[in-house]
């Protein structure tokens, strides 16, 4: 579903002007509060990638989000995004604008109790860590691991029931179901018309959390039935942050009557030199028997945040298929 360019631009401009007139004290990265019913935020990211087969500049994400309370128990969030907004390919000497905004998220939350809350609409699939904070400015590297966009749909258009199972609120669950196509089927990594799963996250201590998910989805373009299992662990002890996520998918291709599997994941270690500077090392593995692909990827990165909502990053990726090795620098801001 597309939002027409001129209408969207007028809408965005109006919202920002109104925001400036009525906003309370503004802090970068925490949005503009108009009132309890309306908060507005925005973000963008830009990157430059250079490798044997790629030499590209992008204004990648341009997005605006609005959220607020409707009643004490009902709240909403809506986010529009255009990506990649502008691409300049130095390898081919071409450039391209894509100014069409899409629905990235659009949902309503209902909070009933600590044990039962409900979210209906298009929302981020509640799996692992990477998928929950997918935008460049919140990540520690410019690139995403293959695991994060090859193995399950990044969004659910449906209902998620979630809450805490125990009184200490250390064990959280999500139970989600989608039975329609995506709200914006042109704008999702994997198109599905049936998607269901359950995920658990256990906060063992303030430093250590452990989680896992089980799920099933059916793709629409080529008819595949896919089951997956996923696990994740995060350990934070400043100045270190170590996290790892892995998944396995079992793929039943109905169109070609074949079976295949994927296995993929990563382990990433971040070391804060101080609150603004950090170095990152990541190892990724991804195997897909559908296309006879097996990749080992090492990432060495540096992150500088003059303020947390402003991110400047540089990284070098070493790929076991050397033609895909590359360098990436990026700049992103959350307003």
């Amino acid at each position, binding site marked *: 579903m597309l939002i027409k360019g001129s209408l969207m631009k007028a809408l965005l401009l109006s919202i920002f002007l109104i925001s400036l007139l009525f906003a309370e004290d503004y802090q970068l990265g*925490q949005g503009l509060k108009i009132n309890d019913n309306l908060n507005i935020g925005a973000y963008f990211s830009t990157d430059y990638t250079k490798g044997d087969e790629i030499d590209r500049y992008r204004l990648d994400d341009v997005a605006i989000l609005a959220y607020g309370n409707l009643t004490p128990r009902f709240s909403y*969030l809506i986010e529009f995004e255009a990506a990649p907004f502008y691409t300049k390919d130095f390898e081919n000497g071409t450039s391209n604008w894509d100014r069409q905004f899409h629905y990235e998220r659009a949902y309503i939350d209902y909070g009933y109790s*600590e044990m039962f809350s409900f979210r209906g609409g298009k929302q981020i699939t509640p799996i692992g860590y990477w998928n929950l904070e997918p935008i460049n400015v919140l990540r520690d590297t410019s690139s995403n691991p293959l695991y994060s966009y090859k193995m399950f749909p990044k969004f659910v258009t449906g209902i998620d029931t979630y809450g805490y199972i125990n009184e200490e609120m250390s064990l959280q669950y999500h139970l989600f179901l989608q039975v329609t196509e995506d709200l914006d089927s042109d704008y999702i990594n994997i198109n599905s018309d049936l998607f269901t799963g359950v995920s658990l996250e256990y906060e063992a201590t303030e430093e250590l959390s452990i989680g896992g998910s089980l799920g099933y989805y059916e793709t629409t373009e080529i008819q595949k039935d896919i089951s997956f299992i996923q696990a994740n662990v995060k350990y934070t002890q400043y100045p270190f942050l170590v996290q790892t996520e892995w998944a396995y998918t079992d793929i039943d291709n109905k169109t070609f009557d074949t079976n295949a599997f994927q296995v993929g994941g990563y382990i990433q270690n971040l070391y804060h030199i101080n609150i603004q500077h950090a170095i990152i090392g990541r190892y990724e593995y991804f195997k897909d028997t559908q296309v006879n692909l097996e990749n080992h990827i090492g990432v060495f990165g540096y992150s500088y945040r003059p303020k*947390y909502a402003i991110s400047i990053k540089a990284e070098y990726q070493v790929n076991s298929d050397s033609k895909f090795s590359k360098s990436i620098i990026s700049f992103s801001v959350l307003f």
Partner: protein
Amino acid sequence: MKFHYILLAIFLQTTVFATEYAVVVYKDFQTKQFSKKQIKDIFMLKRQFINGIKILPVNLASSALPREVFEKKILKINRDRLNSYWVRKHFQGIRPPVVQKSSKAMKLFVKNVKGAIGYLPIEAVDVDLRVVYEF
């Protein structure tokens, strides 16, 4: 002489660890004492309900001394890391707790808004408030 040193040590210790502030809710809020973790969860907006009532945490301005003490003793997180936490929450559609400009304003707010929870110097607490934690 030794006895005087012991008395002095006891006096200093009780002074250093004396309770200075109270976490308070409105007096009709039927609830037990809160644990430190519950209060942290409430002010980090992880916990939104107590006994089925929607909770509304209230902060003082960031420069206020009670807030500094509260963040140090209860949240146990420094200001930079707290700001990065709220930046990440903003992307999830969550804003930090509302702010009142003074202890007097916070007291009035907690007394009059159902579900509100704040912190005050212990001497500012009166019969219209219920203390759920002291620090």
